[in-house]
């Protein structure tokens, strides 16, 4: 039996990516990174800023996400996100833009703990990309 499952990434504008031959996906879930293999129990979780790693025979792919929800059910992994970038397309200047935005956000005085945590995560991830 093959050890592959299907992953689908959708953003509000379109179906971003559909891949049928995925062996493992690592997502930055809210409470830590989570690796998903075939026949994982049905799960719903949401994402913090980080890197989604998709491992498959046809090559590995890395995506940077800022938020989103993952749902895994019947060997179908759906990732809903409003902001996702392929790491290969994410050039330095775009990275810097995102970083600057995040830093501005973080320096706002009225920010609450949870969003502060998320923004800090975002900054950390963006910095680690360089």
């Amino acid at each position, binding site marked *: 039996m093959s050890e592959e499952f299907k992953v689908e990434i959708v953003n509000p504008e379109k179906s971003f990516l559909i891949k049928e031959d995925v062996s493992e996906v690592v997502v930055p879930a809210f*409470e830590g990174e989570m690796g998903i293999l075939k026949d994982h129990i049905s799960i*719903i979780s949401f994402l913090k800023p980080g890197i989604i790693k998709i491992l498959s025979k046809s090559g590995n792919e890395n995506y940077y996400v800022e938020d989103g929800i993952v*749902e895994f059910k019947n060997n179908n992994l759906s990732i809903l996100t409003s902001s996702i970038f392929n790491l290969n397309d994410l050039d330095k200047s775009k990275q810097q833009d995102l970083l600057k935005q995040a830093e501005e956000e973080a320096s706002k005085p009225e920010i609450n703990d949870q969003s502060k945590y998320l923004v800090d995560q975002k900054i950390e991830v963006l910095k680690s990309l360089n």
Partner: protein
Amino acid sequence: MASLDDLKKRIASVKSTQKITKAMKMVAAAKLRRAQESAEKGRPYSEKMNNVILNLSSGISDKENAPKLLSGSGKDQIHLCVVMTSDRGLCGGFNSNIIKKAKSYFAKLSQEGKELKIITVGSKGNDQLKRAYGDKIISHISFKESKNANYFDAEKVGKIVIEKFEGEEFDVCTIFYNQFKNVITQIPQAQQIIPLNTEATEEDKSEDSYEFEPDEDEILSNLLPKNISTQIFKAMLENSASEQGSRMSAMDNATRNAGEMVDKLTIEYNRSRQAAITKELIEIISGAESL
């Protein structure tokens, strides 16, 4: 009867109007294709989102403490209506249909003694509602600068709505938009987004339970605001496809009517030209006879 010169001028003017409507129709057709595409592409996201929320809310253990966005504020007194229309005119009954739907809803509300607040999205709706419901409009949003409906704009609207809900400015929120069915049919819709309608049909209910990380409440409270933006975004996409479709058929009609008018005017022009010639001939002949 109009003189020959006048007729000629009118024919020319109708013809140039026809040219404009024809061009507008063509532009609308091109835009329609794109808008329709993005409306269709956007559907999976909102559907998936809905599914996840349905699964979540059916699994939620204690309904009493469910997030307010899901269960409502417990009251039903102040209604917020988000009326979404276009920024441009000349699109047939598109805007009027939404307004009509909204107005009948408003009338029902005021009969029941409910308080009404309105947010208009798009300038045409604002123009039409300003007269009758000017004092009820609490905010007006317009996205004239953005070419296509995008998620960023929807999020802005969503944030405003959520902020007002958290400030307890309203209890129930309904959005009005046109659902795109096909080029000639758009159905005005009233969709309640707060509190969320979670009456799942039997088939939607999945038997297997999910594992949640973190717990349901936290996911729900995170997901629900997003869902509102998503629903608004969906409405925006449907609306922009409907707008182009409606404009296309309106302009098609206008072009056809202009063609008919040109035909009629041309006949009239020829007839009066002929009449003038005949009259002159009669004058010449009777002049010659009298000699």
